[in-house]
């Protein structure tokens, strides 16, 4: 019990700190991509910027629009922030270690249906977005929410399908087993197509450029969170960044071998691998323009899903052939 609490607390602390600094990292990196410096005033090289932003957001007025559905409006941001946090519960961050004669699994919950849990949670995340957008009673919010829902549901399919070959290779739905199955080589080497599909779907899931139509600033102000302010807006924001970290963790577990790696301690390896995905997302944000809505749908349904299906068939064939 105590160990579980300690694990929970340390995971939460690490993730929230990482989230706060991911915002700063993104702003800094994006600045450098655009030949700017990014924030560098608050503290040494801007290291206190995240705290300054946090304090500012806490002190802002919390506005609930007159026509809004109060209850849903108030609780929707919480869903967005909680879902990716829950997702991190099944990420193993080290091998089972033995402390004072007791075996301590370095994971909060070793679910035997870990992959399904992850997919189910990422579907739940849509609720926060659509409820928040609908409850605000504003046309921009509603349009953003509708777009977000359609987009996230479409790309969820490709996300799930790209994980099927991984499960076939690992013979298990459990995240711990998937990491253990990559003891000799990470799955990215045998499943590059699934990796690329997963990354693209992850970008769409995280509502990041080039798939940020739900918040398209130019047309929709801020999409589903247009009417939010202060700490509730911050929760949406936080949710987006925790989501980036969670997706990074998933990529690390499914394709990059989780905490496995030479020399460095497992947690460091996991962190490095996790940060790879946010870096990729930021790099993409600096590179690609936004897709049109029909292009987004075409790409999801007519390209990613068929390719993912073909990939499953091929991988299955090869696994059968190798096995026999």
């Amino acid at each position, binding site marked *: 019990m105590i160990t579980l609490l300690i694990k929970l607390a340390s995971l939460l602390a690490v993730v929230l700190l990482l989230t706060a600094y991911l915002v700063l990292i993104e702003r800094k*990196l994006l*600045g*450098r*991509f*655009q*030949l*700017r*410096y990014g924030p*560098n005033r608050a503290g040494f090289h801007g290291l206190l910027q995240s705290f300054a932003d946090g304090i500012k957001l806490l002190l802002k007025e919390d506005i609930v629009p007159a026509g809004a559905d109060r209850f849903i409006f108030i609780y929707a941001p919480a869903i967005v922030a909680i879902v990716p946090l829950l997702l991190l519960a099944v990420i193993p961050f080290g091998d089972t270690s033995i402390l004072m004669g007791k075996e301590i699994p370095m994971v909060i919950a070793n679910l035997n249906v870990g992959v399904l849990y992850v997919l189910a949670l990422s579907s739940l995340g849509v609720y926060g977005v659509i409820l928040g957008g609908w409850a605000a009673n504003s046309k921009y919010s509603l349009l953003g929410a509708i777009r977000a829902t359609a987009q996230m549901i479409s790309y969820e399919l490709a996300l799930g399908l790209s994980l099927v070959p991984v499960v076939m290779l690992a013979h298990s739905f459990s995240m711990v087993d998937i990491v253990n199955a990559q003891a000799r080589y990470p799955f990215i080497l045998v499943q590059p197509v699934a990796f690329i599909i997963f990354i693209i779907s992850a970008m769409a899931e995280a509502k990041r450029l080039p798939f940020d139509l739900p918040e398209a600033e130019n047309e929709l102000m801020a999409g589903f969170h247009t009417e939010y302010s202060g700490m509730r807006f911050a929760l949406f924001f936080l949710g987006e960044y925790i989501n980036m970290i969670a997706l990074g963790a998933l990529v690390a577990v499914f394709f990059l071998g989780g905490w496995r790696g030479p020399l460095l301690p497992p947690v460091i390896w996991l962190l490095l691998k996790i940060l790879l995905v946010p870096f990729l997302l930021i*790099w*993409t944000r*600096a*590179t*690609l323009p936004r897709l049109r809505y029909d292009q987004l749908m075409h790409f999801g349904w007519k390209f990613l899903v068929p390719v993912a299906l073909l990939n499953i068939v091929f991988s299955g064939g090869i696994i059968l052939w190798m096995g026999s």
Partner: protein
Amino acid sequence: MDGVLIMQGKSPSSGWQLFGAIKGLASSYWITLLHLFRKPITEQYPEFKRTLPARTRGKIILTRSPDGKERCVACYLCSGVCPVSCISMAAAESEDGRRYASWFRINFARCIFCGLCEEACPTLALQLTPEFEFCGTDILHFVYEKEDLLVAHGGKNSDYDFYKHCGIGANSEKGRRDNEKEPVNIRSNMP
């Protein structure tokens, strides 16, 4: 490649399209990655202050002519042209007939630094300077009186003196100024 094929009335095969798309994506990712390692071009303001051009439109001053007198003749042209009506003054006249502003006030809290007053000023008295760092939190602090605006030099045109060229005979007799001929004696103006 695509362009040529489309001109020939064919659409490029999907293989070519995919290849072109991947090539385009890769090159754009490469370019942004290169930018990541270039030195930012940002000028870090408070540490680095670039020298601004002399005609930058900043804080307003009232200048003096070379002989040290106030140039402003209180003609109200600047306050008339100001789009936000932030200049006000009262005209007065000295014994020699020279006009001046008994008080002159610019409310910088409203000024939009458009420079129209400088353009309107016939005596080059009112000038905008590159000085722009005078922000504050008290709004009354931005109401500048004549003493605050008046400087001891001639600004951008230090050797110009309005009364050397025109104006009433406050400083010099009519016909004795620069670029001016003797008045014609109409009685002796015979062909």
